[in-house]
């Protein structure tokens, strides 16, 4: 019986230890590994320096919608509980609307020192749902096409040209479909913007019940397109396949791309571009669950994370991501060189012209379903 008692003892101490000595701030984050890394390596040490008795615990829930879905399920499973085990969550834009509507999030930004720094439309509206007061953008990310100039000097500049190009270069374009992360999903949305005449409706509504029936041509084209491309396993998989020379171009998240670049994990010769008419991007949001155990600490954590200094040094300076709060507040904290670096591949003008938002929540789901039944089937 001794080993059992010993194990049980170890087990209870393992569970109890962190809570006994200090307060643990549980930060759940959706998205790829780089998100966990950013919170662990950059934010947590700074926050803990200000709050010595607090330990930040970052937990990754997985890439793409699945990661945000996991956070949603974690919270809704605890609906009946007194307090919920999540203090801060980082979620995708799509999930923010549903979680707000279901009353899972607390309205906190009014009391936040940095609350007024984020005034972009995406800070108030998440794919058609009013989320004002519930979210703070962590950073703005954009899906772009990465290409390897060594294999491809003149990449096609539009979806139309790309569709032609892949026929002559089978397998040279790669993306991750819709099951392996949002880069592939976003590429498909861009495709729908390009090949249906609904680009504006898809992004701004209103929802039309019969819309999916009008997508047949676009989906058929995509099905043909898929026969000429390489399928990669995930957002990271696309970059990995580029690294290993298996494909010449593919859609990537710019934030992830730059993280890899800074790490020396990506061939420095690669370049980025946006396809005509445009590709979607989205912010990641900081939210506080309605019944977070340490709601006040959580707000302080978010205030730190969205302060101009941290946004400048961490989001822009270190990772070359687009800031979540309005750019003018961040601009002053940065050198001209750093600022220029942010737009070295994609100019601000191009970004303004070709940087689209994700489709409205209803269309979002309808496109994915249509893809599964028409394209990948």
């Amino acid at each position, binding site marked *: 019986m001794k*080993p059992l008692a010993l*194990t049980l003892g170890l*087990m209870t101490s393992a*569970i109890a230890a962190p809570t006994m000595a200090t307060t643990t701030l549980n930060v759940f984050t959706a998205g*790829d590994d780089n998100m966990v890394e950013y919170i662990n390596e950059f934010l947590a040490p700074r926050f803990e320096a200000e709050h010595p008795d607090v330990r930040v615990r970052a937990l990754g829930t*997985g890439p793409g919608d699945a990661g945000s879905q996991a956070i949603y*399920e974690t919270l809704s*499973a605890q609906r009946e509980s007194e307090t919920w085990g999540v203090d801060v969550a980082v979620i995708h834009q799509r999930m923010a609307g549903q979680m707000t509507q279901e009353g899972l999030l607390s309205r906190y930004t009014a009391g936040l020192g940095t609350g007024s720094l984020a005034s972009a439309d995406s800070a108030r509206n998440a794919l058609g749902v009013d989320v004002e007061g519930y979210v703070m953008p962590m950073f703005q990310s954009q899906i772009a096409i990465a290409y390897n100039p060594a294999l491809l000097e003149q990449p096609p500049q539009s979806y139309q040209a790309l569709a032609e190009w892949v026929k002559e270069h089978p397998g040279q374009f790669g993306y991750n479909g819709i099951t392996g992360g949002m880069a592939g999903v976003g590429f498909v949305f861009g495709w729908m913007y390009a090949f249906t005449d609904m680009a504006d409706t898809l992004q701004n509504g209103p929802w039309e019940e019969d819309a999916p029936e009008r997508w047949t041509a676009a989906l058929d084209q995509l099905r043909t397109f898929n026969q000429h491309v390489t399928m990669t396993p995930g957002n990271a*998989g696309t970059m*990995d396949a580029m690294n290993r020379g298996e494909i010449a171009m593919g859609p990537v998240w710019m934030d992830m791309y730059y993280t890899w670049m800074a790490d020396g994990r990506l061939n420095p010769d690669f370049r980025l571009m946006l396809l005509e008419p445009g590709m979607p991007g989205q912010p990641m949001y900081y939210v506080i669950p309605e019944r977070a155990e340490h709601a006040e600490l959580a707000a302080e954590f978010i205030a730190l994370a969205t302060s101009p200094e941290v946004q400048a040094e961490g989001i822009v300076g270190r990772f070359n991501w687009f800031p979540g709060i309005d750019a003018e507040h961040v601009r002053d904290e940065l050198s001209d060189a750093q600022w220029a670096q942010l737009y070295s591949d994609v100019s601000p003008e191009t970004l303004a012209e070709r940087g689209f938002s994700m489709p409205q929540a209803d269309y979002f789901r309808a496109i994915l379903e249509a893809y599964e039944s028409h394209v990948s089937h």
Partner: protein
Amino acid sequence: MTISKLLSPLALGVVLGLVAFIVFGPLLNLAMWTFAEQWFYPNRLPTGWGFSFWERVFRPRAGAWTSLFNTVLVACAAVLLSMALAIPAGYALARQALPARSVIMLLFLLPQAFPNLPIFVNIAAIFYQWGLNGTLVGVVLVHSLPGLVYAVWIATAAFSAVDRSLEEAARNLGASPLRSFTDITLPQALPGLLAASIFVFLDSIDEFTGTFFVGAPEITTLPLLMFNASMGGNYQVAAITALILLIPSVGFMLVIERFLKADVLARVGR
């Protein structure tokens, strides 16, 4: 006879060399990734070597230590729980005339005879209601399910491989039934029981799907850490974690036959 004389030993050497490449090539590739700091097309070999990713995996915040601790703790707890349930059950199934023995054996066969993914998914849904999701207890329970099945099978095989005549001899010489169990039966079944424990332990270390649904993201074990790193494109981190996972696996593989005798193996599943 003449053909085999001509073929050997050169052909044998070639075939065995090929087998060696198939077995060790992938492992070598993995080992290379753990020290590769820069490796991209068109380079066949890494362009930078070093330990910096090791440092990154084992720095305090990276979570490798917690995952390692969780993995070992969960595996040990799963072994204890499964064996505590399996030893009496295995003994009874091997020795006692049970009503509907084959039905019971079948029930213990089912979890291994059917894919367990739907089971794990629904366990997760049930554990949500019981508040066990994301707790160590929940993960241990989920790891004990496949473990228990192995344990019952092997324990049953081990007990039925024990020579009954020795027990009877001991009883004839006046030993009490308990003594004949602890002195004769148990020592003879011990190698099989140890093998069962090893199976459960390894199965728990290997276990990914159950932890993925029941434990994540609160409880991270090494397989989960490795999977996330791999899907996130951190090949080095994934390779280093994989290498750690290989230590117990390969270690037990090298000693397995000491514990698991052919006669026990032949009885598994009967």
